């Protein structure tokens, strides 16, 4: 009996460590760290204003009470902001992957504690936080490097599992907090009334539309692990469907789930996206064309 268990564990371990090109982790790393800067300045810029909010409103989460995390004073928030910007910029270049990556991971986690300790916790961050925590373990990686790495593969696989877990466990949470009656509830009606208007709200008034959507969403969430079973084109279609779902959610409710969408890029062959290399190729080609053109003129009659 022990041998099948050992074999299963070994296979699971090998699956988690499936090697990926270093160019893929380099691209993912650049994307994640640049998004940190975007998050600070565009996606959730209000966290930067926490320094001006009275400390009386700060209700630290469990980790903020257990660890000696400071109350967000203006100086602390400002210093944290700039440390994050600088370290994320450095990390996005692939330089100092471990040192810069650890600084970003620790500081961004504190940034999130500041952001979530005033009465509302966002649920779109787990996979992104995990990616930040694990990227320093992937080691050095250059864009375009075709060598494959188990360390890099483990980081991406963990992020993928976290992405799928976000969907699957959110369905579990609906059953835990909403019971099996959840699909029949007015939760979507409530969401639309709070955040939406016009087309989407009018659509929600059509009989059974919202109930059907709730059924579809919870079934899709429970089925999310199928992403690991699908191959190639079908997996790409399923990932695309996830992105479309979040686009529609953003249009209807104004909820972007942006950090989660960035983490979901861990499924994609990012090593194929090389804008700088393409630009260099175009630039080099034009230079060669110009040189060839000049030499034809030189040897002309």
């Amino acid at each position, binding site marked *: 009996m022990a041998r099948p268990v050992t074999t299963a564990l070994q296979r699971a371990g090998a699956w988690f460590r499936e090697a990926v090109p270093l160019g893929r982790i380099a691209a993912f790393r650049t994307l994640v760290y640049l998004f940190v800067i975007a998050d600070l300045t565009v996606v959730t810029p209000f966290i930067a*204003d926490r320094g001006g909010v009275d400390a009386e409103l700060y209700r630290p989460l469990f980790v903020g009470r257990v660890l000696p995390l400071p109350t967000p004073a203006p100086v602390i928030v400002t210093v944290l902001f700039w440390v994050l910007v600088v370290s994320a910029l450095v990390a996005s270049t692939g330089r100092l992957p471990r040192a810069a990556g650890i600084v970003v991971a620790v500081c961004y986690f504190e940034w999130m504690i500041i952001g979530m300790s005033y*009465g509302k916790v966002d649920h779109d961050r787990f996979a992104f936080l995990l990616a930040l925590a694990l990227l320093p373990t992937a080691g050095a990686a250059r864009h375009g490097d075709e060598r494959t790495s188990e360390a890099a593969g483990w980081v991406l696989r963990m992020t993928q599992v976290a992405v799928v877990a976000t969907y699957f466990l959110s369905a579990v949470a609906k059953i835990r907090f909403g019971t099996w009656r959840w699909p029949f509830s007015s939760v979507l009606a409530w969401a639309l009334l709070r955040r939406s208007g016009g087309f989407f709200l009018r659509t929600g*008034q059509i009989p059974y539309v919202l*109930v059907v959507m709730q059924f579809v969403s919870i079934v899709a969430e429970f089925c999310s692990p199928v992403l690991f079973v699908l191959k190639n084109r079908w997996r790409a279609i399923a990932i695309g469907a996830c992105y479309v779902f979040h686009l529609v959610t953003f249009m209807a409710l104004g909820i972007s789930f942006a950090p989660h969408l960035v983490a979901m890029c861990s499924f994609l062959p990012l090593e194929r996206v090389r804008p700088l290399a393409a630009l260099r190729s175009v630039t080099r080609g034009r230079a060669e064309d110009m040189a060839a053109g000049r030499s034809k003129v030189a040897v002309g009659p």
Partner: protein
Amino acid sequence: MNSDAGEGQRANPNTKLTVAPAEIRLERGGRRRRAAATVVVFGLLLAGTFVGSDDHFPFGPFRMYARYRAPDQPVEDTRVIGVNRDGRRFALHERNCGIRRAEIEGQEPLYVADPRRLGRIADAYNTLHPNASPVVQVIVTKTWHDVADARPTGRSHTETVVEWRDQ
């Protein structure tokens, strides 16, 4: 010889041999540490999902829109209104005061118990807008929308939950 290039392999056009890129493998210690980390991370996440709460972020349950709302009971829409010294009323939200509407909802019992806490929201707005007419009153309202068969009916009524005024 195999001229078919699989994933992670590239064909050498000169020899028709496939050459797999070098694989950088983890040593045994690295594998064990990562296996342990995998178990810890997802073990905590599972625990948070089944017995945790938002307080256990980031390992708390993914409870976005998870709460059951009866299909024939009104649903609430909370708004936070600021009134400045000129009498102008406008919504207070994270973009102008650094505090989200949902955060005020999340701590609503505390605001109801001590309306002076709303003064901190006014202070936050005034700190961010030192040149604007200061907010001197904050009102938290709740609009109840009628719902039937899990869809809006179009009928609603609004009530004031708590308010604060600068004396």
